[in-house]
């Protein structure tokens, strides 16, 4: 199955796992550890009450919770039974995210931004999560959940100005593109050190419990970064203090160029790791808007009612390069994204709505056009505030601000030395 143009032999006993489809191979996912997708078996996994004993979630952690069948029906006990307006809103938010990603990728290629990261194929995870949570539940994202911000109505122009690092950037060009922060939208500041946000989310959740609020924190990490200590700290602390947190692992199969098996090792699923900590654990179809929505709702209710944290593995696929600096054709089969057996989240929700008689191709196309036009128009506004490569318009004196609450003497002296 693993076809290599040049064969890279391993002549030792050291086990080094390899992905299913290296460049040149015809992608084949039949060996992927996944339950039978064709039969409806995965749609009949039970939905226990949210306060169930954590260990009773075992089959949910090793199986795959799904609602949408590949042909667009909603099936099984996890169906959140959302009305058509909510579904259309979800579809819209996913399409908006996709359209923004497309535009920002283009402008990065035009040299107007230093960097960008798309979330193509993973939009359901961020969008459905934001819709299932309360607007003031603090989310602790990785860099691939821009859909959270967009769903919560963060001004698109502000988001784009952040990517452009221009004078419209609310962060005054301090952070690299995509490291957004918005306390107002309960969106925690993204740092670039992988995994560190996980224990912040648990600390935040502990603070919610300490203060007696019904707040819940909701953290996201890629599957690759679960190998960081911080992931384990987060599970330990949320287990010990029964923190009202939701710990999401977005398993998009790739961590830059290393496949998920490098982080997973021989473990059954990523979700399964939660069980060892006594946390309720679910593995769900991350390309299934309804499954994500249902799982986050379930976990949020569990957290809010004192049941503690839930670990959710979102089984999905990163359809594009890791970032604008990456070329995935160097390490994986070209057609892998199209061969992914769980389809595309936008297509699947669209098909579902059409099947319900609540949507059609014309409306879909029209919405796509409308969003693209809105994104382009907003981008033009954003660019009028400058770009990194032309003029950022950012006052150099701001460099010394917000290091501390008050500027200490030595920074004052350094600012003077810079001549401002």
């Amino acid at each position: 199955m693993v076809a290599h143009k040049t064969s890279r032999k391993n002549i030792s006993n050291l086990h080094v796992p390899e992905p299913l489809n290296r460049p040149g191979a015809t992608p084949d996912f039949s060996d992927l550890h996944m339950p039978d997708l064709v039969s409806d078996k995965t749609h009949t996994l039970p939905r226990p009450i949210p306060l169930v004993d954590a260990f009773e979630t075992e089959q949910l952690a090793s199986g795959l919770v799904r609602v949408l069948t590949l042909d667009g029906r909603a099936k099984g006990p996890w169906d959140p039974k959302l009305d058509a307006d909510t579904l259309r809103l979800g579809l819209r938010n996913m399409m908006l995210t996709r359209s923004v990603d497309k535009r920002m990728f283009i402008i990065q290629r035009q040299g107007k931004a230093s960097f960008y990261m798309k979330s193509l194929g993973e939009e359901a995870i961020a969008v459905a999560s934001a819709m299932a949570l309360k607007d003031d539940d603090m989310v602790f994202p990785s860099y691939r959940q821009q859909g959270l911000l967009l769903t919560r109505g963060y001004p698109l122009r502000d988001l784009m100005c952040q990517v452009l690092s221009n004078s419209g950037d609310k962060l005054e060009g301090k952070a690299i593109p995509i490291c957004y922060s918005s306390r107002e939208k309960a969106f925690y500041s993204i740092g670039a050190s992988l995994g560190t946000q996980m224990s912040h989310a648990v600390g935040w959740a502990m603070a919610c419990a300490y203060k007696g609020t019904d707040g819940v924190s909701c953290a996201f990490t890629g599957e690759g970064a679960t190998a960081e200590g911080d992931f384990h700290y987060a599970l330990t602390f949320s287990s010990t203090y029964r923190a009202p947190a939701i710990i999401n692992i977005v398993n998009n199969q790739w961590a830059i160029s290393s496949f998920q098996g490098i982080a997973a090792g021989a473990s059954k699923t990523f979700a399964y790791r939660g069980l060892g900590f006594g946390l309720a654990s679910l593995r769900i179809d991350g390309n299934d808007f309804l499954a994500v929505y249902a799982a986050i709702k379930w976990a949020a209710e569990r957290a809010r009612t004192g049941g503690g944290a839930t670990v959710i593995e979102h089984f999905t696929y990163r359809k594009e390069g890791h970032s604008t600096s990456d070329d995935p054709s160097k390490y994986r089969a070209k057609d892998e994204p199209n061969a992914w057996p769980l389809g595309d989240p936008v297509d699947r929700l669209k098909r579902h709505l059409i099947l319900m008689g609540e949507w059609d191709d014309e409306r879909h196309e029209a919405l796509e056009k409308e969003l693209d036009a809105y994104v382009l128009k907003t981008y033009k506004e954003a660019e009028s505030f400058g770009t990194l490569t032309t003029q950022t318009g950012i006052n150099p004196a701001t460099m010394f601000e917000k290091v501390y609450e008050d500027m200490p003497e030595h920074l004052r002296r350094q600012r003077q030395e810079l001549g401002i």
Partner: protein
Amino acid sequence: MSDQVSQKPKMKQMNMIQAINSALDVKMSQDPDVLVFGEDVGFFGGVFRCTAGLQEKHGLHRCFDAPISEGGIVGTAVGMGAFGLRPVVEIQFADYIYPAFDQICSEAARLRYRSNGDFTAPITIRSPMGGGIHGGTSHSQSPEALFTHIAGIKTIIPSNPYDAKGLLIKAIEDNDPVVFFEPKRLYNGPFDGDPHSPAKNWGGHELGLVPEGHYTIDFEKARIHRAGNDLTILCYGTMVWVAEAAVEATGVDAEIIDLRSLSPLDLDAIVKSVTKTGRCLILHEATRTSGFGAELIAEVQEHCFYALEKPIMRVTGWDTPYPHALEWEYFPGLERCSRAITRIMED
């Protein structure tokens, strides 16, 4: 001194452990957002007893044991701080702060900056540091320079009970993350750097006389431990007391400056003193190369070059791990410091 003491304070004789305990108690009583946690700090009250009685007095939810996970302790504290609490966490020994280093350096220190003020981490990280208790490689380190090198945190090292309490309260109230190192050899009394001289305690010592209630000491304000005209000695923590003994032994009219706050640094006090004395000796227990002394030397030569009569000198720990059996050969004790004073005073 710019210390702000509320009303007329009732004073009490305390050692450094009691002073730290009192600071925590005062803040926990005043502010329900102050939480204390760390390894063994709850029921037991900490391996050095700094949190003794706090759980009983303020409740299990205010002072509790944490998993043995320094990264998790600081990481959760950052999240709590972002929420709006003021966690004070204990890292059991400074030697074990490294698993938390990423959370301190990449997260606590940068959160305000990268979010442009949207989120902050008003947390205090307390940790016993330094040698003199036969702690060997793993219970003696002085890693302060690793932290002064990081923009966005403050690094504080008190040398006595009075300062410890006022500075710790200040640290808890500060809206930036503070790393607060406690020289463990000073917990029970000042230490002159001679392991053979009888142990002293803080009883009867004027710096052991501590207000019972709330007071703060500003950062960025060094303390003139001893005024003098012929030599400036820059030091902090345990070395303040070694400096005092060495000055006494050599009979030199030295000015001993206890920096207390390494970052931010009271450069004015340093420049003023060295300009007056023309000689500068730096003492620290930490290893020499890239130690905080190097930073002090750079600042002193830049600002006092024309006032200097002799090259700036430093006495430090050797560039080795902290040995167990040879602790006193490693420690920059009375003898080495006295010798340096004598040398720098030669014409």
